[in-house]
Every structure is written in structure tokens, then in C-alpha cells.
């Protein structure tokens, strides 16, 4: 109780203090506040992961009713992820934001918004009163918008911010709909009321769940609710893109899992729905990621892909719960939760390295970069590790969670009926394609950005950032590697959160036994791989020690004046892919050919666009606009007319109560007809 109060006190005092502080101390103070709050919430979270549950009841007010704060293992797992990413992210941010230190007021607002965002996310994980939950949700949406539009002098940034704000509020509408529905029927804002209501009325559970699912899916970025994501991520400062992709979209995943626990819908149906949406999200995200030229936008689309993978885990878990298959449920939810952590780790690392690149070169267009590995070796190695991890390639962490998903799928296959076998086949196909496409994407990204020759000359010196700035990145790397080679350890931590989903099903420890049985040799294999690679390096070193090595130019098939312009570009690297997947992609070409005796400058540029966004958002808006434009005559710019509208409005407001009875009678009369 005291810790929670301390949490709030720190939040309020620090955000009141920050505007009055000068110099770099603001950032440090904000970091300290986040550190203290992190410690406070981790104190509960760690205990929860060892099996204790906390429940605090605050009195609240007349409007909200009592405010229960419940911390269980699921909340704890997300709290840990949030805290870790916020700590590393804000530490990295301290250095990243130094460049902007002359924009004093902007920075102050930014720091305050960051602290509030952390508090809001923590709150969302633990608060179980729908009104306070919505307030926390709103704080999150609003502070994120503030954080995204840090570089608000750019139009694209402001547009991204507004886009995000609007879509967040669409999500809030769905949440409110669900909460008000229950509160109206049940008269309580406590989350337990939702459980009570839905168990009494099983016929509406699926509708109720889908309502909440839509809200949380917008936040998480499931296709087709993803369109805000590729705008907001590139617009935000790199360190915050990392936090956003690492934890903020995960709060959507948390919401979905929480609702699964609270609502208890028909798990099998829900499982299939989630599974299908997730496979589509995963494929669509990575398909669009490949054709992006902006490094951060590419990473943003990969977030959609990874949300899809997490969703596949949740879907499998739900189906396991639906069919009372303890092992399947365990594997599915463990994979989903572990991938949530994994994605938070490698995606934030990727965004931070993208931040390093942006700070050094001031561009994120991968077609302008190249050969950075020689100038920024540490950034390159960190990016490489994260890239391998995100492709789900051993020996790093991404493989562990994907392996669990595959294990779940193949286990499920043994018991499946015809329908579910087809679903499994579809999902396996999707997973494999996602993995392969991710590999295509990240070989492109790493190959073009870091390898080869520089494609553009920069006037500034390009070098790695100082060690302290890289420190959080190294810490993340340590976790990426250790999850890869000690998967058992992390799965043990996961046993409590998974237990929440599987506890009321029989054969309690089958899951633990199974994972132990599978993962022990698995981690040996990982060790074996690493040892084998090291052994091969040693052998290579010993043999090539005495041999003559010389340096020459790259073999150009007889051409001896290579230019950096003849290198394969990112666009040409994915050309055959692009042709193959053309039905799913939307590409605009902008070319001007060189012709004539005195030719002008020629150019060739491609722009990518999102087909789903085109059909789902742009076209309806255009249609709506054209509909509304018919009423444009009302807005004719003449003051007299506007006054007339005002008078009509006021008169009708006054008259409606007067004629209320008559109107009712009229409607009754109509009904009789």
C-alpha cells in the first residue's frame, strides 16, 4: 500500500518539479523517477512471479466506486517487461535527446509525458476498475501522442501524432462500449462484475469479447487495425520508438490476455478467430516490411509481424483451453508470453541501433546508407544480433518462442480433426513464410545499411556513440543471448503466468514436464552450436595462420573501376520478391527518363503504400468527404446565415421539450399505422 502511494507521490512531485529544472538534470530526474517507480512495481511483480498475489482496495470516489488494484502473475510478467524496456529505453534516451537540449520547453514536456506514460502503463496492468482503467488508458494515449510529436515542426510527425490520437480514441470507444455495457447491467465497475455478467449470460460472451478484442487489437496493431503503427514509429524519437514497439503495443496483448481470463468466452471459436487474424497480421506485416525504404518504418511493419506471431501463440493457447488440452494451452500461452518479452528485447534493440544510425548520418533512408559496419562496428554487431533474433534463427531468443509455437502446432496436429488440421497446415505455412520473409527483409536491411560501400558521402564524422549510450543496448543483448541458451530458466519464470490460464484444467504439471523434456536437449543443441562454431573458428585460425593473405578489389567480372553506385540496392534486392507478391502490395513509381539531345536530370523513385489502409481508411474517408461536400452550401461564409443557424438551433432546443408529448403521440400514431 505504501509503495503504491509512494509511486503516485513520485509521479506527481517529479512531474511538478521538472518544468523548473535547468540543464541536463531534467533528463536525469525523469530517469530517476522512472527508476524509483520501476523498483516499486518490480517489488510486487517479482513476488508475483514466485506465486504470491496482491490485492489492494482503494476507496475511490462516488463516481468510480471502489478501486481494486490486483497484481497477479500475468500483470507481473508485463510489469517486468515494461520496467525493463523503460529503464533501458530512458537511459538510452538520456543520451539520444542530448542533441535537442536547446529546445528546453519541448524537452520538459517530453520528460513529463514519459514518466506519465510509464505510470499509465503500470496502472493499466494492475487496475481492475473500469473507469480508472479508462483514465489510465487515456493518459497513455495522450502522453504517447505528446512523445511522438516531439519533432513537431515536421508536418509528417504532426500527422502521425494526430493519426495515432484518433485511432487510440477509436480503441477507447470500443473499450467504453464494453465497460458501459457491463456497468449498466451490473452496476459495478469492478472487473469481477464482467466475469459475473458473462457467466450469467453465456450467449453474449463472444460479442463482448470481440468488442474488447477490437479495442486492444487497435493498440497492439493487428491487421486490419494496424494503420497507425507505421506512421507513429518512424515519427517518434528513436529511443521512444523502441519503447513504443517494445511495450506500448504489448499492452494490447496484455488486454487481450486479461479479457480471456475475465470473460471466459467459448475458447475454441475465439482461438480460431485470433489464429486467423494473427496469421494474416504476421504475413501482411512482413510482406510490407520488405518493401520499405525507411529503416524505422521497416521495423514498424515488423512489429505488426511479431504481434501476429504472439497472436498465433494466444490462438493456439485458446484452442488448447477450449479442448481442455493442458499441454497445448501451456505451450501456446508460454510461447505468446515469451515472444512478448523477446520482441520487446530485440525490437527495442533494433530501434536503438536505428537511432544510432540516425544520429550519425541524419538519414534513415536505407538507399543512402551503406558500409556502416566499418565506421560503427558496435552498432553493426548489435543490429546483427537483433536481426538474427527477430528472424527466429538459433541460437538467440526469437527461435525459442517460435520453436514453442511450432511444438504446439505439431502437438495439436496429432489430435486434430479435419478442420483443425487444415487450420494447422495454414498456420504452419504462415509461420514458415513469416520466418523466410523476415530473413529476406533483414538480410536486405543489414546488407544494405551496414555492408558494401557507402552509397552517399557524409560530411560529418560517422562513429559509434559513446559507451554509456551503448550500455543499455549491451544489457539487452545479454538477455537476448541468455534466453537463447538458457530457455529453461525463463520458462520457469513463465510457469506462474501460464498457470493462470491452465490452472482449472487437469494434468497440471504435464506442461512443465513436457517443456523440460523438450527444452533440455534443445538448450544443449544451442550450446553445441555455439561450441561448434567456436571450434571451427579455432581450426580456421590455426590452419590459415601461416597462409598468405592479400587484399584486392572485389571481383567485378573484368570491370576494374567499381563504383559504389553499381552495388545492389535495397530496391533491387527485393525486386523479384516485389514482382512475385505484387497483388498484395501497392507501389507508386515516379520516374523521369533521360531523353533528348540536351537531357534534363532523370530520376526514379518508388513509394510504397498500404493496400489495407487504402481500402479500409482512405476510400471510406473519401466517400464520406464527397457525401459531406454536398452540404457545403451551408458553410457559405456569410455571417447572417450562421446567426440564422444559431437561432434555429436555439429555438428547436427550446421547443422540443414543449412538444415532447406531441412527438411521442405522433410516433405512437406512426407505429399504429
Amino acid at each position, binding site marked *: 500500500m505504501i509503495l503504491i502511494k509512494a509511486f503516485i507521490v513520485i509521479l506527481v512531485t517529479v512531474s511538478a518539479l521538472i518544468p523548473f529544472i535547468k540543464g541536463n538534470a531534467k533528463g536525469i530526474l525523469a530517469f530517476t523517477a522512472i527508476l524509483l517507480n520501476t523498483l516499486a512495481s518490480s517489488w510486487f511483480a517479482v513476488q508475483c512471479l514466485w506465486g504470491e498475489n496482491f490485492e489492494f482496495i482503494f476507496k475511490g470516489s462516488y463516481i468510480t466506486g471502489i478501486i481494486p488494484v490486483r497484481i497477479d502473475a500475468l500483470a507481473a510478467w508485463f510489469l517486468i517487461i515494461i520496467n525493463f524496456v523503460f529503464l533501458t529505453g530512458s537511459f538510452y534516451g538520456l543520451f539520444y535527446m542530448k542533441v535537442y537540449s536547446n529546445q528546453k520547453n519541448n524537452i520538459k514536456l517530453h520528460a513529463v509525458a514519459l514518466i506519465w506514460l510509464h505510470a499509465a502503463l503500470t496502472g493499466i496492468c494492475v487496475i481492475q476498475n473500469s473507469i480508472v482503467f479508462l483514465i489510465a488508458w487515456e493518459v497513455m494515449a495522450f502522453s504517447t501522442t505528446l512523445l511522438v510529436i516531439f519533432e513537431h515542426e515536421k508536418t509528417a510527425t504532426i500527422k502521425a501524432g494526430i493519426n495515432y490520437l484518433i485511432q487510440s480514441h477509436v480503441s477507447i470507444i470500443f473499450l467504453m462500449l464494453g465497460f458501459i455495457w457491463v456497468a449498466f447491467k451490473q452496476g459495478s465497475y469492478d472487473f469481477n462484475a464482467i466475469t459475473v455478467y458473462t457467466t450469467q449470460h453465456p450467449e453474449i460472451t463472444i460479442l463482448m469479447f470481440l468488442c474488447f478484442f477490437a479495442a486492444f487489437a487497435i493498440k497492439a496493431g493487428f491487421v486490419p487495425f494496424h494503420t497507425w503503427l507505421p506512421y507513429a514509429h518512424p515519427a517518434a524519437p528513436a529511443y521512444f520508438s523502441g519503447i513504443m514497439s517494445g511495450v506500448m503495443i504489448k499492452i494490447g496483448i496484455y488486454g487481450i490476455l486479461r479479457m480471456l481470463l475475465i470473460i471466459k468466452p467459448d475458447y475454441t471459436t475465439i482461438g480460431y478467430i485470433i489464429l486467423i487474424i494473427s496469421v494474416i497480421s504476421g504475413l501482411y506485416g512482413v510482406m510490407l516490411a520488405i518493401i520499405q525504404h525507411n529503416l524505422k518504418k521497416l521495423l514498424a511493419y515488423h512489429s505488426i509481424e511479431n504481434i501476429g506471431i504472439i497472436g498465433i501463440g494466444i490462438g493456439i493457447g485458446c484452442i488448447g483451453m477450449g479442448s481442455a488440452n493442458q499441454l497445448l494451452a501451456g505451450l501456446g500461452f508460454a510461447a505468446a508470453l515469451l515472444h512478448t518479452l523477446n520482441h520487446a528485447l530485440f525490437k527495442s534493440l533494433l530501434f536503438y541501433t536505428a537511432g544510432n544510425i540516425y544520429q550519425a548520418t541524419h538519414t534513415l533512408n536505407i538507399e543512402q546508407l*551503406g*558500409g556502416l*559496419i*566499418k565506421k560503427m562496428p558496435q552498432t*553493426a554487431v548489435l543490429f546483427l544480433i537483433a536481426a*538474427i533474433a527477430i528472424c527466429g*534463427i*538459433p541460437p538467440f531468443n526469437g527461435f525459442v518462442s517460435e*520453436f514453442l509455437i*511450432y*511444438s504446439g*502446432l505439431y*502437438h495439436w*496436429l*496429432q489430435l*486434430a480433426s*479435419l478442420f483443425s*488440421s487444415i487450420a494447422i*497446415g495454414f498456420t*504452419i*505455412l504462415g509461420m*514458415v513464410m513469416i*520466418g*523466410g520473409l523476415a*530473413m*529476406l527483409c533483414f*538480410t*536486405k536491411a543489414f*546488407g544494405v545499411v551496414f*555492408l*558494401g*560501400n557507402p552509397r552517399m558521402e557524409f560530411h560529418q564524422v560517422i562513429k559509434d556513440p559513446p559507451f554509456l549510450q551503448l550500455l543499455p543496448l549491451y544489457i539487452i543483448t545479454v538477455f537476448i543471448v541468455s534466453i537463447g541458451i538458457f530457455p529453461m530458466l525463463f520458462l520457469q519464470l513463465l510457469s506462474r503466468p501460464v498457470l493462470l490460464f491452465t490452472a482449472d484444467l487437469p494434468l497440471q504439471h504435464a506442461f512443465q514436464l513436457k517443456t523440460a*523434456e*523438450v527444452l*533440455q536437449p*534443445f538448450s544443449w*543443441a544451442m550450446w*553445441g*552450436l555455439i561450441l*561448434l*562454431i567456436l571450434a*571451427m573458428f579455432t581450426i*580456421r585460425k590455426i590452419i*590459415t595462420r601461416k*597462409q598468405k*593473405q*592479400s*587484399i*584486392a578489389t*572485389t*571481383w567485378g*567480372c573484368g570491370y576494374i573501376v567499381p563504383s559504389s553506385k553499381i*552495388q*545492389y540496392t535495397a530496391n*533491387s*534486392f527485393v525486386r*523479384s*520478391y516485389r*514482382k*512475385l507478391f505484387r497483388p498484395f502490395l501497392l507501389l507508386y513509381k515516379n520516374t523521369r527518363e533521360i531523353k533528348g539531345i540536351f537531357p534534363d536530370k532523370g530520376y526514379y523513385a518508388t513509394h510504397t503504400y498500404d493496400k489495407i489502409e487504402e481500402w479500409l481508411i482512405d476510400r471510406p474517408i473519401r466517400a464520406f468527404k464527397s457525401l459531406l461536400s454536398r452540404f457545403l452550401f451551408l458553410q457559405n461564409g456569410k455571417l447572417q446565415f450562421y446567426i440564422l443557424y444559431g437561432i434555429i438551433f436555439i429555438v428547436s432546443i427550446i421547443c422540443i421539450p414543449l412538444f415532447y408529448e406531441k412527438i411521442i403521440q405522433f410516433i405512437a400514431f406512426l407505429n399504429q399505422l
Partner: protein
Amino acid sequence: MLSFILIFIAAVFFTGIIVRTKSMASGRKGPGILQPIKDVIRLFRKGAVYSQTTSFIFQIAPTIYFSSVVMAMLVVPFGQYKGFISFSGDFIFFAYILALGKFFSILSAMDTGSSFEGMGASREALYSMLAEPAFFILMGSLALLTGHTSFQEIFSALHIGSYITYALAILATFVLLMIAMIENSRMPIDDPKTHLELTMIHEVMILDNSGFDLGLILTAGYLKFAIYGALIVNLFIGVFPYGYTIPLFFIIQFSVAITIGLIESFMARFRMGHNAQFIFALTSVSLLIFFGALLILGKFI
């Protein structure tokens, strides 16, 4: 352990047999069966030339590529006898470990800054992505058929008896053979003997490798052939006792090598643009196996 040694022995002869078959088919005498191995040993003794564009990625990539193939080899069982590493879901590990090698070989091609190698890298990334679903669906249907999820358990439980299983075994052999051809960039997909860099896939990626590194890459290629050969062997030997399986292993490996040689002699390479369709068609063959497995298990009602 047995499988490791057997695959190793098979790898020594495999490529030699392919080359010999090809030369005999075209009416030449051809080099000795051990010539590929002699080439590699010669390369191991040679010094290396590195491009000035390259970074350390180029130096570590061949080693990681080779290690990944050796690691994959450790997973492959021999009939009822487990591979060095065996756990349920080990075929997923098998496929992903090969992906690690591919990842690095693609990067090392990008590292040279050559447009040709970039082209090869791009094709390799795309084609290996398209080939992978076929393998996973194939293994999935075998897992479905046998009720197990590790290589060794699947293969030792695989009984070929009824007509449908014969059909499935033939289809599975076809899929594995074609995956082997794609993984090794062989004929219908890629022509290792072509002299035009624009039309190569694998060969163009290793244009700049030399000396020890090139030797490693070539050895890895030989091993990969033998590994896929061993997987095909495993489809058939599950139930036989020890004494028959080892000769059977070599007979099947031998005939696979000759088949590959014959395919390479009498078939032209596809147009690059058609490769993708062909490779993805393999997935539909795998799906056929999948439905065959469902049919056998009587789930189609």
C-alpha cells in the same frame, strides 16, 4: 553417431558420383570420384584474397555456414538409431539451423559490394524462403502419420505398406530431392556450371571467397547433399534390421546421386522468373502428402 559417420562417408563420394554421371551422360570420361574432395583439400592449403570492401562478416560467414551444416548433420538419425542430438521438434531445429547458415552466406555476398553477388544473395533469400514451407508441411504430414515429432521417432515408426503409403513415399522422395536441389542450387533452379554470372545463384554468391573459406563452403555443399540423401534413405529403412540398412543406405545415396546427375544432364535450367512458381509448387506437392496422410488416418469423413 552412426548416421554422422555414414553421412560423412556418403558426402565424400556424393558429388564425385554426380560429376561422373554427368560426364558419362555427355560421352566424356570425366574426373575421378574423389576429385571434388581433392579440390577441397587443395583449397584448404591455399592462401586467401580478400576484397577491400569486405568486413569481418565476410571472414566469419563461411565458418558459420559450415558449422550450421555440420550441426544439421548431427540431428539427422539413421533409421531407428538417433542422431547425435534428438528431441521432439528437432526437424524444426534442423531447418532453422540451416537458415542460420543461409543468413550468413547471404550477408557475406552483400558484404563484397558487388552487384553480381547482391543479385545472387537476393535470389538465394527468396528461393530458400519459398522452399521452406514444403519441408515443414512434409515433416508435418509425416508427424501426423506417425504421431511423433522427432526425426528418429518419425522415421522408425514409418511403415510403408499400403498403396497410399507407396504414393506418399514417392511424393516425399520427390519433395526432398527437389529441396536438396534448391538448397544446393542445382539444375532445374540453378546451373552450377554456367559461365554467366547474371544467371547464377549460389556460385555467384561465392565469387569472392577463396582459399580455406571457399573450401569450407564447398565441403558444406557436399555435406548438404548427403544430408538430404540420408533423409530420403530414412524414409525407407525404418523397419529393417541393422545388417540390411547400411548397404541400403549406400545404395539409396548412390541412386540419389545418379538421379541428380541424370537430371542435370538432361534438363535445362528454368528461366529465373519461373523458379519461384516451381519452388512454390513443391509446397502444393507437400500439401498433397498432407491430405494423403489425413486420408490414411481416416480423418476425411
